[in-house]
């Protein structure tokens, strides 16, 4: 048991971070409109850094976590998680993300199964909370992956999703801590108020919890981990909500950018919970 990563995994995280570069989620999207933050240039850069085909071996799980955290920190498009781990956009409950023009969809099937199949209907955009390009679409008969392959895909998706949630939480917490340090009220930084300290301590506890669960997923030899996915989803939402509370009104302004983390956290948590449901 050790609490340190191999240096090469740290380097991989740095290479994904560099590939993300200055990319940021849209700051002022059309609320209540349909929005797809898919970015093919970003996808190409992270693929070049090695963020691809993460199902291919258990020894890639540390990379799935290290890179997933970086993607979460940037609130990067979630298609980067689905396509690098499942090979196609995830399809659940009649919906898929970032799948407006996908030739193939990854279908969650009962008891941890996974199928791949083409859309059988026109993709109809569905307005959703975040900009993850959700579409309502039907899938024709799917080719069901062999159990070993399906498990490997879900294992990678599980690790990367937990990591993405950890990254979202880490960034939201870092923004909130920075705000609490620099914003002064009553003649002192907000962070000197015990109530604010208490709230941020809770957020730090939740963030570390999700981060530790993500790294532990590198030792997972099964597929989805419903326990970790459910807890991590709600914990991440708790962190982003706390970050908003600490920011006060300024966080409510779209130009601040925190909203992207709050909305994406809820979205990923719901998809994670739905995947956990499908695992039974």
């Amino acid at each position: 048991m050790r609490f340190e990563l191999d240096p090469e995994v740290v380097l991989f995280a740095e290479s994904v971070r560099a590939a993300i570069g200055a990319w940021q989620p849209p700051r002022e999207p059309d609320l209540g409109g349909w929005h797809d933050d898919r970015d093919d240039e970003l996808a190409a850069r992270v693929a070049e850094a090695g963020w691809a085909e993460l199902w291919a071996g258990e020894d890639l799980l540390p990379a799935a976590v290290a890179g997933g955290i970086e993607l979460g920190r940037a609130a990067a498009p979630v298609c980067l998680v689905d396509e690098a781990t499942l090979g196609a956009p995830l399809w659940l409950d009649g919906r898929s993300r970032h799948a407006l023009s996908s030739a193939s969809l990854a279908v969650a099937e009962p008891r941890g199964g996974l199928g791949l199949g083409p859309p059988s209907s026109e993709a109809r955009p569905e307005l959703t909370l975040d900009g993850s390009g959700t579409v309502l679409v039907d899938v024709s008969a799917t080719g069901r992956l062999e159990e070993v392959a399906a498990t490997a895909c879900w294992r990678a998706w599980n690790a990367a999703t937990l990591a993405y949630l950890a990254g979202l939480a880490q960034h939201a917490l870092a923004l909130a801590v920075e705000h609490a340090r620099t914003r002064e009220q009553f003649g002192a930084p907000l962070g000197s108020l015990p109530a604010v300290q208490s709230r941020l301590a809770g957020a730090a506890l939740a963030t570390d919890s999700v981060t530790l669960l993500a790294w532990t997923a590198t030792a997972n030899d099964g597929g989805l981990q419903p326990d970790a996915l459910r807890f991590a989803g709600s914990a991440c939402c708790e962190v982003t909500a706390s970050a908003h509370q600490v920011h006060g009104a300024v966080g409510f302004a779209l130009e601040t950018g925190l909203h992207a983390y709050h909305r994406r956290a809820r979205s990923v948590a719901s998809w994670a919970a739905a995947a956990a449901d499908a695992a039974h």
Partner: protein
Amino acid sequence: MVRDRTGSREAEPGATRDATEIVRGPSSVSIQTCRCSTRRVYDRTRVDLRLTDAQLALRDEADALGASLRPALADDPEWRRQGLLSDGDSREVTRALGDAGLIGLTWPEEVGGRGLTHVDAALVEDALGYHWLPLSLYLLSYKTVGCALERFAAPALRERLLGPIARGELTFCQGFSEPEAGSDLASLTTRATLQDDRFVVNGHKIWTSSAWLADWIYLAVRTNPDEPRHRGVSVLVAPIDTPGIEVRRFPVLGGGFLCEIFLDGVEIPAANLVGELNRGWDVVMHTLDFERITAEKLGGLAWVLDELERRLRSTNRLDGSRARVEALRGELAAARLLSLRAADLLDRGESASAASAMAQLASARLAQRLARDGIELLGVEGLADAQTSAPLEGRIGGLYRASVGSTISGGSADILELVVARRGLGLG
């Protein structure tokens, strides 16, 4: 991206590469650094928690001992009423743990230990807790007091005390809190005056676990009243039957007892000083770092969760409650990781204050959430309390009572949050 729509992906070109092949060298990338101090925390959350074979064997050893000791406890009414058994008292169990060589795991072999790590000890405590062994005397004697003695006591005192503690023959209680010094421990007023080769101690301690059973007491006292607060504090140890020490026990909500200690002209040899005179605050803080890693509570909560799920399944209620049970399991897994991380920091000799505060917060909140959710999910049968024939041996009712104290004992959650914010996040 190459996609395989037919099934196995094992034969794909990318299938054989390993993690090192997808790494890009650092020279070609710009490395962003986080300006925020939370980075310090995250640097310690990169983790590979595969247990070694030796750790698996050690955990199995503790599990087997716990299973063997549990049946003999069933007739004890105190055991049935105790809502968080890690708070329970038993000299017999402590002795059995000593006989099995499970006390003092982290100490050197020459003082009765095994030279293992605090992570190993946490794994053992989790396994023992799963069987709901009464562990209060063990925890006080080894983890909080014993480990501080091992680090801070003079060689003669270490030699005198650690061996008997490791054998389960010598037990300790810890006299820290006072009627006017609870969360604000640094305001303690119990006075120790050095007269020749002994201290004379006068004062009043309260909320002391296991004092009615313990052999010795570990006392935080004020040795220099002219120094402010945490300066001028020292730590002493003494047999509990030293003249002038009076113990009064009183029953508490969780089951069992807490005690108050009256100290009236108690003479303690100067050789029983732990650490340096007037520098006892460092010893106290170190002690609390150990106390706040509550792996044993998590083991007990894991048993409750296992039994809760079994009961819901056997009564066809699991499908409707699966999401809540799974979320609790996820929270338990995270709490265990937080405990192990804090233990790992102690093993490295690094500051563990924020990490151990987080570990205790996670454990305490889980205890309360599990008690609330468990009672709700079980319905009226969950109200059974100390009724061993009831579902979960009637433990949920007891846990509901006892978990009230989980965010109070060992440090109020409100104060622990400030520790996390100030030491972990650099606020304040």
